[in-house]
């Protein structure tokens, strides 16, 4: 190998290493005059019937039958839509949050907060957690299995909101009362919008986690409502995403200490 070749290989290696580390990262900073967004997500139509599953394995833990409601609405308002404010580079820290959802079982998504999202998926009673949630690229996610049976965690990433083309990221056994930590690397998540997690042994365990890169997100509650606060003044894109109903977006301008009221409406297609 001559010196020129060696130099090029060295430069290429350095660019790969630096390129990997040069991806955009959210920074925590002071938000003195932050504004907020309040809103509701409506669903105009009849939600599809819940899917019913006859449990084939581990009925002693999972029960005999399970159901999965993919579109959950009440009085015309949508629960579980993920609202994301895009384009915020600096702002409040990630807040600690816990979501349990309405699926059978007591699994939960716990976000530890701080400098990063800190997602923990606490699987219990054959339930990963709520049907929808959020996840961050390049961040370790802890998957805990609090059940006395094995689950096979299978995660996919998709470039579109509804996951039409899913690409496997991880496929690994989750042993009883064990925990594994897996990272969702940026190269796998490139242009990725959503991560789907399923259990290969229990087909009713399926959840959707939308990719976020800042703490300005919310998940609509049982009245379809959501709040995002401490937003630095500026103009952003506000997205609402749902695995079955798709995606809607609108441009929003946040004023200092202002409170913006927004609304989204999905219709039955």
């Amino acid at each position, binding site marked *: 190998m001559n010196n020129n070749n060696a130099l090029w290989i060295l430069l290429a290696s350095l660019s790969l290493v630096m390129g990997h580390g040069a991806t955009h990262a959210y920074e925590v900073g002071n938000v003195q005059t932050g504004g907020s967004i309040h809103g509701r997500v409506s669903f105009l139509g009849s939600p599809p019937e819940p899917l019913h599953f006859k449990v*084939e*394995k581990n009925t002693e833990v999972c029960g005999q039958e399970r159901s999965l409601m993919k579109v959950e609405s009440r009085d015309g308002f949508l629960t579980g839509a993920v609202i994301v404010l895009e384009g915020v580079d600096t702002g409040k820290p990630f807040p600690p949050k816990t979501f349990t959802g309405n699926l059978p079982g007591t699994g939960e998504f716990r976000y530890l907060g701080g400098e990063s999202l800190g997602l923990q998926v606490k699987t219990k009673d054959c339930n990963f957690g709520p049907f929808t949630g959020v996840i961050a690229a390049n961040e370790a996610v802890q998957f805990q299995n609090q059940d006395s049976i*094995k689950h*096979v965690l*299978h995660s*996919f990433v998709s470039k579109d909101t509804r*996951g*039409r*083309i*899913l*690409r*496997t*990221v*991880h*496929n*690994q*056994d989750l*042993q*009883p009362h064990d925990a594994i930590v897996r990272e969702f*690397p940026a190269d*796998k998540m490139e242009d990725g919008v959503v991560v789907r997690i399923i259990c*290969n*042994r229990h087909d009713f365990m399926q959840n959707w986690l939308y990719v976020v890169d800042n703490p300005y997100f919310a998940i609509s509650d049982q009245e379809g409502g959501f709040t995002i606060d401490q937003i630095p003044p500026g103009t952003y894109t506000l997205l609402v995403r749902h695995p079955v109903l798709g995606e809607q977006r609108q441009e929003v301008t946040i004023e200092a200490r202002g409170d913006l009221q927004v609304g989204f409406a999905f219709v039955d297609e």
Partner: protein
Amino acid sequence: MTRSIRHLCFGLIVGSFGIVYALPSAEGALLDGLMGGVEESLGKKAEEKGERLVIGNFYQAERPDSHAPIGVMQDHTHNKGEFMFTYRYMYMYMDKMRNGTDNLSSNDVLKDFAVTPKNMTTQMHMFSAMYGLNDTVTLMAMLPYVMKEMEHQNRAGVNFTTNSSGFGDTKLAALWRLYAFETPSIGSHRFHLNTGLSLPTGDITPTDNTPLGNNSLLPYPMRLGSGTVDLLPGLTYTGVRNDVSWGFQALGTIRIGYNQQGYKEGNQYKVNSWGAYRWADWISTSARLNWQQWYNIKREDGQLQTTVGPAQIPLVPTADPDRQGGQRLDLMGGVNILFPEFMGLENHLNVEAGAPIYQYLDGPQLKQAWSFWVGWQMVM
């Protein structure tokens, strides 16, 4: 020259493990991200049918035909951290002589040779383990214990039997996930690359008592290994749709260098194709076609007696390096049973048996009559 070959072999072994261990964080199949056009096209078709396209799902649902018929090895990969132990037992019976596609009687052979083989049994106890190192590589190691017995007859009409037994060659392999895709309507399709080495742990100087004397060196078919480091490249494709599964595998055995006895066995190539039907969650049956071609030995074992008497009559066809090659097509039928999970372990009991439907032998050689396999696989 020999030293160079040894260095090459050593380099290959160290290199193979170096590659595997250099990629402990490898995530996903090797062709992921390189099949954009294919994915676009498949994704569009799936969307038209209201289906999702899933890329990179190498997981095989727990079903009886999630593993190939037991006579096929390295047919599937494992998830990261998954371990599988397999015990296989094989019984192969060879009976009567053949040259080309012509059957020969013992008298036909004894016109040209002092001794003819009459039949042979080979039994193997194979212990193997597979481990999912990461989402790309599955490692495999296999050690067989081999028992061989051959009956002979000489021109005087005297029958005698020779035996050899011991550990055979150790096989180490890395299975590399290449690509996988699936939709409900087209099923799942998985491809992986097989790379491996066979290490010469089998005895190539077995001896037994014969009419020629005690502790005579036994000829090539009675040896327990090749004596050489062999490369084991291959490609495997498997598919599943509803209750039907199928597969195709091409594997080679490429001999490197010559062994300590001064010869090397011929290269060997195998092509397997199989189909299986799942009758219930716990049982499936399979049919398999196994084509194989193996070549004659290069050079010869200088210590092996090949002629007898002052007239230098050829001793026995099994001692002739130019009478070892052949081609064969086997038809096999099998049953796979998946047992209920016990203490977190997934247990498979698989049986397979069959016989050649075509064999061309560079003989005279013993022709294969039938073979039988049974195996227990435990996934944890």
